[in-house]
């Protein structure tokens, strides 16, 4: 459960709805979290769990209509981003918050040189002249370990490989020294050996620059390697939040537990059969009034169908939105969870 004090980004009760033909899709439901300076927060979930939409809502990156951010507060730099004018938001994007998108193939503009695209935020946000921007752009390419940086500035995106393009994306996101970097599945489109290179680069950059990072992924392995703290999302809600070691050692939500069991590994024992989570992720056409994981949950009981569980603390920095208590292996007492909520 987040508290507003000394965090760089503080999100409370965020709710995003898409208007579609024949109704609404409630993609994000009352999501609250915070981000401490210098930490790497991992956000895990399947496709459609609302992890990307949450982050895009923060910066007003979703087209409206169909998207509508209905409720919530996003405090960054002492301001509520949801109340900001488009001009103010534009200053926050790039300058205060950098964004790396999933697909390096489509997120760079093919008709401009890479140098131009790195220099764009520098000239726009920091008011640098061409020469200074060029120098800084070269530094940035060197920072993300692209050889022959000076020459490569004049190249177009198609002259770079996938891993190199993702490095360029990272250079652009870092151009104005943002306090927060949001990375939306930055390695999903890359091969494992290239992914390892990018993860190494991020570790190195964190040491050098010390910005806070939100890392969205569906790969639990990546999370285990780089995150400090993890949020697990399901059906547009945060179902569990914990420090990374705690989450993998002592998962408290049935979904997290099941997810950890379905993933095979290259080390250790090989299970004769994979555990599966039966069923499909939910389609959220209205504000949930019951637990969204209920139809696929082995622990579900009658209360799960009546109310949507609120997040309750189960340890230091560890909270879970579930009525089931794995310590006593029984339902949580109604009074206790109400008091915590």
């Amino acid at each position, binding site marked *: 459960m987040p508290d507003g004090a000394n965090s760089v980004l503080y999100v409370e009760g965020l709710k995003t709805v898409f208007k579609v033909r024949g109704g609404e899709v409630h993609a994000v439901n009352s999501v609250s979290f915070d981000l401490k300076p210098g930490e790497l927060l991992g956000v895990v979930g399947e496709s459609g769990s609302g992890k990307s939409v949450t982050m895009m809502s923060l910066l007003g990156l979703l087209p409206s209509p169909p998207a509508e951010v209905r409720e919530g507060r996003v405090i960054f730099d002492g301001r509520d981003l949801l109340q900001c004018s488009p001009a103010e938001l534009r200053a926050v994007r790039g300058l205060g918050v950098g964004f790396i998108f999933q697909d390096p193939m489509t997120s760079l503009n093919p008709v401009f040189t890479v140098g131009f695209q790195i220099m764009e935020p520098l000239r726009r946000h920091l008011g640098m002249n061409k020469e200074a921007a060029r120098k800084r752009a070269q530094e940035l390419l060197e920072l993300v370990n692209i050889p022959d940086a000076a020459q490569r500035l004049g190249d177009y995106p198609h002259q770079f490989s996938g891993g190199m393009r993702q490095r360029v994306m990272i250079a652009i996101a870092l151009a104005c020294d943002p306090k927060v970097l949001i990375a939306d599945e930055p390695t999903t489109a890359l091969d*494992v050996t*290239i992914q*390892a290179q990018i993860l190494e680069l991020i570790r190195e950059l964190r040491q050098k620059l010390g910005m806070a990072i939100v890392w969205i992924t569906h790969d639990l392995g990546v999370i*285990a390697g780089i995150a400090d703290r993890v949020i697990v999302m399901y059906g547009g809600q945060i179902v569990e939040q914990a420090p990374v070691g705690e989450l993998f050692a002592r998962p408290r939500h049935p979904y997290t537990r099941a997810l950890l069991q379905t*993933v095979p590994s*290259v080390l250790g024992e090989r299970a004769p059969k994979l555990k*599966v989570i039966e069923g499909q992720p939910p389609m959220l056409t209205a504000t949930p009034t019951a637990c969204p994981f209920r139809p696929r949950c082995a622990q579900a009981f009658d209360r799960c169908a009546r109310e949507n569980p609120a997040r309750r603390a189960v340890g230091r920095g560890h909270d879970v939105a579930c009525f089931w208590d794995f310590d006593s292996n029984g339902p949580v007492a109604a009074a206790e969870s109400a008091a915590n909520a």
Partner: protein
Amino acid sequence: MLDHKPTQKTLVEVDGLKLYFPITAGLFRSKVGDVKAVDGVSFSIFEGETLGLVGESGCGKSTCGRALLRLYDVTAGSIRIGGVDIAKLSADALRRMRPTMQMVFQDPQASLNPRMTVAGIIGEPLDEHTTLNRAEKLARIYELMDAVGLSRDFANRYPHAFSGGQRQRIGIARALALNPKFIVCDEPIAALDVSIQAQVVNLLEELQDRLGLTYLFISHDLSMVRHIADRVAVMYLGQIVELASREALYGSPKHPYTQALLSAVPEPNPEHEANRRRIILTGDVPSPANPPEGCNFCTRCPKVMDICRKVEPVSREIEPGRFVACHLYETTTTAGATAAPEASGANSLSTNNTTTQQGV
């Protein structure tokens, strides 16, 4: 290739398979080069086993899988399935072979015709290759839908009404329609969510047990291949660099590329992750149109020697049933004995330099 378990029957035998795509240029589309997508690949698949084929994108694993069913015309080499060399069959004879070999495609969205119902999709192979009447066909379609865990009520729906995992089930049912012996699964789970991947993999395993199928399972997901495959082949730039049983390959990878590939897979365990020694490869995969001289991996290999830049290593059996194409394991043979001292002695300085550079 030698058979490591003589009791097992070989179903698929590939020998020196090459598949080049021509590069053309100019007004008259004259040929200026080749993309060597698959460049001299040999392996065999035993009846009832699953061979995993892993590698990074662009290494030729999908092309290899498609060539095996002759969805491409091969440039050279032979592919024997059940004793018949399908690389040289005529179109007619090949068509009669089709029922024994089928394919499950990567993208369940793109591989199902959006204007056909599920029953139409699953029944199409039956239309083409059998003389079943309408009622028999419908009975078979229902049977297949039951086998892959789709409700019979869905038979008249269209693919758009299904989720990714269910669509992949439709694709699997279609592949099973003609009782094939051999199925090429080309990244069947890559487009699916983690929790759905496990469902599809379990289904494939169940069907294998029940129907005695033989799979070639192509994937870039090394942890899933470890789960499903009996033996694993690792491809790099059109060639198989290592082929071994699952335990041997994951337990002690021999080829430097396999070692790097396995060490790059993130583990869902923070403690392991913190203490793991990672081999980070520098650079990217070279273009298959212009592969480096000598060993294909020499531009990225952390253990590169001088000989690697000159002589192409051949795949040899270093342990029973274990094939590695690397100069590191050639010292025991006569061919390697003459070449190795030269490389390690006189040029050790330059070798050292390269390795440090690559490590940075």
